[in-house]
């Protein structure tokens, strides 16, 4: 589904990620783990060309999603981001009503019919488990929701565009434990319908959720993937010594 070949991310003269080659299987949940500052977020941002927003950012190497090179002509950045949704660490609903939050991007991408929009809104809110909580106040401000609800709203907002891939950058780290658990169980339920790549600090969470795992580490000042594969294999018998130490909690 996602295939990166020697992906490097540079910000000016600083290299954040070096030669990252990763294969993400369709319908799986892949966890990207590693200590802070080893390029995990930069790697993730490169996958949906969010790096385009940073003037000094440069990408080398190849990224294909669904067999199509993302820098190629087959898709514009906007279309790419419709198929590849992103959830941020800190929930960032727009300062508008819940309904508009979900429908804004739908309208942008071509859906105009009111009934269709409302139907999609209900579907995704049910999918994330928010429908019962907010169905009576769809037109009130999204900012009034709790942190966990806001994050689930952001996931719903991304799901409304029917993406194939969801990229999540530490989606639970800004949430309290209860909200975090809710979001985690939501992610679990999305498995197999979507391909999910989740960056996380929380090894226990990775263990719970991930089918596959990639371990990042800093080598020579840039982030590299030092270990990757099926989660069960890596957690039980990591081959790279640093990865082993990290996963055992003795380093990083």
């Amino acid at each position, binding site marked *: 589904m996602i295939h990166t070949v020697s992906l490097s991310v540079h910000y000016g003269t600083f290299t954040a990620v070096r030669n990252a080659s990763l294969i993400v299987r369709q319908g799986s949940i892949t966890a990207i783990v590693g200590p802070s500052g080893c390029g995990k977020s930069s790697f993730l941002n490169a996958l*949906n060309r*969010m790096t385009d*927003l940073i*003037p000094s950012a440069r990408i080398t190497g190849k990224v294909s999603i669904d067999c199509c090179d993302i820098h190629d002509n087959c898709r514009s*950045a*906007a*279309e*790419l*981001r*419709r198929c590849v*949704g*992103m959830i*941020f660490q*800190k929930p*960032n*609903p*727009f*300062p*508008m009503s819940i309904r508009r939050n979900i429908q*804004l*991007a739908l309208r*942008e*991408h071509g859906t105009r019919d009111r009934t269709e929009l409302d139907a999609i809104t209900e579907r995704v809110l049910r999918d994330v488990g928010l429908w019962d909580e907010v169905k009576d106040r769809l037109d009130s401000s999204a900012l009034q929701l709790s942190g966990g609800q806001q994050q689930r709203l*952001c996931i719903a*907002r*991304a799901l409304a*565009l029917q993406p194939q891939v969801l990229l999540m950058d530490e989606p639970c780290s800004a949430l309290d434990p209860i909200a975090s658990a809710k979001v985690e169980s939501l992610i679990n339920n999305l498995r197999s319908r979507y391909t999910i790549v989740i960056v996380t600090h929380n090894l226990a969470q990775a263990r719970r959720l991930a089918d596959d795992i990639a371990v990042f580490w800093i080598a020579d000042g840039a982030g590299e993937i030092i270990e990757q594969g099926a989660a069960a294999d890596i957690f039980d018998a990591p081959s790279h010594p640093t990865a082993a130490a990290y996963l055992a909690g003795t380093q990083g």
Partner: protein
Amino acid sequence: MRSPVISPAWKERVASVAIWVSASLIVGVLAWILIDIFMKGFSQLSISFLRDEVEDAGRGGGIASIIASTLAILTVTLSVAVPLSLATAIALTEYTRDLTRGGRFVRRSLDVLAAVPSIVFGLFGNAFFCIALGMGYSILAGGLTLACMALPIMIRTTEQAIRSVPDEYRFAAAALGLSRTTTMFRVVLPAATPGLAAGLVLGIGRALAETAALLFTSGYVTRMPESLSDSGRALSVHIYDMAMNVPGGNTRACATATVLVLLLLFINGAAVMLMRSVGRHVPPTRSGSV
């Protein structure tokens, strides 16, 4: 032995008195001015003052045509300055984010523009709008000249308002594949509305207080204007004329001044309230009015 840094008590006392006296002086004079103007003009204030046309070179009747001219000039100014300042502010925030050479050049020119004396704007307006573009003494020429003057402060305020919108909204919008245009007009600008309104209001305040620039662009005519190419007299120009050129016109000048000051008080108060709701203070009005 006394540390040389600790000052003797009397110095502190004197300084304290001086500071308090200065502060009171400023406030006192402010009150003096406002009260004086109001008291002297009070006798002339009435609904008919606002409604009637000018008579007897301003000694009689009211200021209805003046108010109409002022509003007409203001409309011209805003119709040009608002879109231009909004578009320029967007350019400065979104597309020259990293203070490129172009961005710095634009900013520097605007800084100089902000400091240009208003009589110099009057000269420019006269040479460019009235003569070169053939508008003659007209409301149009006056309005356009004021637009040039209001531009720097409106751009500055609008830019601040846009920059104060948190980046996370932009990132969320980008991640959803929204175009830059949609992001700007449906997410960022709506979120920046209080600041934008403050900019608008400051621009209005600047334009209303202007006098010198209008003397040679929109002129002195007291008739009710019928079109934008008519000459018209603004409130501030009327005050000047009544005070300097019309014997016995002082009272009416004060009355007109009261109207103008109340209007400006209202407008500036609105600006301050709007700015506070964005969490920023109104920039020091160093180019207040001439």
